[in-house]
């Protein structure tokens, strides 16, 4: 080990080949992760700009900044891009790709070429969707509800759904790759219950990728076919069922919420254990709750349809099942909190994001109870209450986890440290900006302000102004890491192999790791997060 460190210019994955070709044809999971990081960041910035225009439009009740048609296209593109091109691939494709082989002690993912293909598939899907956006846009909302999308909309629905359809295959390929890698390529001694919790969460996420995404693909193909051939699947005037699409769509898109949140939960488990130097309290419960969330997530899609006209009995069943998902989520929050107990807690940037995650996820999760509760959901359904709730979960939860994870593993990814002070400032700004943006929307929602409204009654203005102010602060909070992380890639101090004194195989190789991760295959002799035994190392 010390011999390796003594060599000043040991080749790592970043300087193992230069030039555009060495990146575009790479089969190294770490480079592919960076390809994803770059493209996903681009989409995040785009989606964020759309969000800011939407918030600016809502500064006044009159709807005077953009036309209603433009507004509808803006929120549609914001949703489509953020959901399908940022939130769903973010942690799995960037951190999952980078970390899973390192965490299980493998030289790469099981199918490196398939991994590269999945990035290309993602990019091709993105090109289709962006083409739709540039050539006139689409106004169906990211949910593509029929028969509006299949018959009535005069915008680029087919092009957009083709883009999303293609991108879905990238999810499927990634999920497949992860599952095989986790099953077959674990280092000697790395039993299932020694796996880092991040790997458990990625395993659960991959199950959803593989089982759910095909259903989304089918429903989008049907929308496209109905638009082109008018075959009467969704439009009742030609014999279709307008609700069929909602069943198909939410069968994927509710589990998709867990695609966004489970990886974040995995990241948070890693950060909390590291920065409190503790074994995860109730490791098995955290691991199994990931799987439970993934499984239960497939049974609750009907709670998006309590006012859709589905039967009362269906409403009751879906309500009951939805409440059950709250239990594994609560178990996780309690276990993370208990992990801090008698720990050695430090407040580095990733830990601040983890705290922020728990805060926002707790509020997002508890407001989920309002929506599972039948009578109350009827009132807040399709209002800003929903917007606030799912942003707390999907943006508060998923993005806090993503940013926390990016900071936590940044030394490993880039080989450089970021400026800690700026990191902490950004984490606080994001947290405050987020709450100012979305908390007022809970109140707006109970007041009854419907979502997707371009103009609204004047009494809702004050809360909307607050929300827009928060969005500006949030925008600055997101911009900060973009700036200082980019800066640190060149100017940051060099990182050691394990700057946080963390446990886990990824911290045993150099920062940044060599192309094939480990000079020799590690052998695991202890449980994950064995912080109490300082002398114990992997042989």
């Amino acid at each position, binding site marked *: 080990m010390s011999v390796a460190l003594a060599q000043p210019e040991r080749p790592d994955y970043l300087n193992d080949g230069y030039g555009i070709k060495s990146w575009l044809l790479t089969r190294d999971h770490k480079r592919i992760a960076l390809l994803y990081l770059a493209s996903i960041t681009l989409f995040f910035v785009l989606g964020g700009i759309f969000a800011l225009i939407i918030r600016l439009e809502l500064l006044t009740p009159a709807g005077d900044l953009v036309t209603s048609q433009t507004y509808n296209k803006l929120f549609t593109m914001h949703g489509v891009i953020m959901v399908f091109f940022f939130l769903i691939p973010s942690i799995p494709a960037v951190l999952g790709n980078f970390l899973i082989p390192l965490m299980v002690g493998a030289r790469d993912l099981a199918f490196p070429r398939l991994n590269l293909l999945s990035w290309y598939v993602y990019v091709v899907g993105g090109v289709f969707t962006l083409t739709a956006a540039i050539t006139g846009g689409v106004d169906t909302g990211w949910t593509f509800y029929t028969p*509006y999308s299949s018959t009535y909309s005069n915008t680029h629905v087919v092009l957009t759904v083709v883009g999303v359809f293609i991108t879905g295959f990238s999810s499927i390929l990634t999920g497949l790759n992860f599952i095989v890698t986790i099953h077959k390529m674990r280092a000697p001694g790395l039993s299932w219950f020694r796996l880092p919790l991040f790997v458990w969460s990625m395993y659960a996420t991959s199950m959803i990728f593989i089982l759910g995404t095909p259903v989304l693909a089918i429903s989008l193909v049907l929308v496209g076919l109905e638009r082109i051939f008018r075959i009467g699947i969704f439009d009742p005037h030609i014999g279709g069922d307008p609700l069929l699409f909602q069943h198909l769509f939410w069968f994927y898109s509710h589990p998709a919420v867990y695609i966004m949140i489970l990886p974040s939960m995995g990241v948070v488990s890693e950060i909390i254990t590291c920065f409190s130097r503790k074994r995860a309290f109730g*490791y098995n419960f955290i691991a199994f709750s990931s799987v439970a969330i993934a499984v239960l997530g497939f049974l609750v899609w009907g709670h998006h349809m309590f006012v*859709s006209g589905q039967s009362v009995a269906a409403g009751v069943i879906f309500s009951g099942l939805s409440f059950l998902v709250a239990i594994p989520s609560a178990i996780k929050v309690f276990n993370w909190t208990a992990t801090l107990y008698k720990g050695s807690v430090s407040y580095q940037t990733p830990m601040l994001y983890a705290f922020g995650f728990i805060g926002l996820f707790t509020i997002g999760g508890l407001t989920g109870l309002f929506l599972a509760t039948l009578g109350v959901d009827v009132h807040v359904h399709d209002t800003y209450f929903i917007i606030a709730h799912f942003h707390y979960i999907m943006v508060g939860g998923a993005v806090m986890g993503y940013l926390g994870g990016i900071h936590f593993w940044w030394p490993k990814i880039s080989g450089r440290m970021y400026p800690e002070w700026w990191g902490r400032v950004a984490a606080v700004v994001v947290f405050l900006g987020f709450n100012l943006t979305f908390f007022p929307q809970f109140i707006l929602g109970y007041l009854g302000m419907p979502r997707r409204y371009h103009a609204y009654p004047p009494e809702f203005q004050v809360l909307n102004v607050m929300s827009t102010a928060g969005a500006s602060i949030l925008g600055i909070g997101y911009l900060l890491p973009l700036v200082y992380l980019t800066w640190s890639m060149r100017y940051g101090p060099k990182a050691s192999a394990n700057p946080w004194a963390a446990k886990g195989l990824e911290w045993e190789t150099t920062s940044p790791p060599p192309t094939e991760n480990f000079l020799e295959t590690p052998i695991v002799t202890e449980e994950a997060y064995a912080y109490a035994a300082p002398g114990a190392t992997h042989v």
Partner: protein
Amino acid sequence: MLAIEFPLFPPRASTLAGSVDNLYFTLLAITAFFSTLIFLCILFFAIKYRRRSEDERPPEIHGSLKLEIVWTAIPLLIVIGLFTAGVRIYYAGARPPANSMPIYVVGKQWMWKVQHPEGKSEIDELHVPLGVPVRLLMTSEDVIHDFSIPAFRIKRDVLPGRYTTEWFQATKTGDFHLFCAQYCGTNHSAMVGHVVVMEPADFQKWLSEGPQPPSMADSGARLFAKLNCATCHSDSGKAPLLAGSFGSTVPLAAGGSIRADEAYLRESILAPRTRIVAGYPPTMPAYQGQLTESQVLELIAYLKSLPPGKGDRR
């Protein structure tokens, strides 16, 4: 001087609203309790157990089965309670009282057409009497809309090709927001209106003001004659007699039976061969595409108005 309208709570104007609000406040209390609990615990642990030296090694704690059981069981009990309370309200909202006053609603891009059985119709407005249960029978001419009245805490999607219903009993006179809550295209946010709750006497006065259009049943009767429905739906025996058929149980040719509610009558007008009544040949032409949703509603209103007649062979 500066009078900014800044409400934090919506008006409460229906019999259902109180129970929804009570459950909402219960949920708020639960949310406040648990989030405060979590936040305080994190704050307390983070301060009390802050890292004091770089080589600090805290004791290893694996977990506690007892704790896991406790913090699984408590949330489970709470959600079972919430589930039950929510279901009760949902049931109440799904079951209009038998004596409800019917009003018909058709949504189209981008307006609400409301029709009172007495014949008066209105656009983007709904006048209703105070204290009388009202049942809305709703359908759409094009895409999915949603008829939402926040002050009444009710909301229900309005779908093309089928009927949905919602009901309320207003408890306060006044003017309340009516929103389309399901995204329906370009002018979605302009598909808004008012619900005007009036004293019953004022409502009757409003109903009888202005030119008196024929009642929906009368319009339906005229349509029924114009379409020559009576040629077969008569003593001829070619088709079932329709008097008193609304609400009855009809045996089907394919076996089984169906309750002749609005949805079945609509289907039987627009696509009559879907479910043929037992004992009759499938000869009726389909009126799909030939009648507007409003006309179908008028025909149904007419059929509902027919008293059980003599010679009904069923």
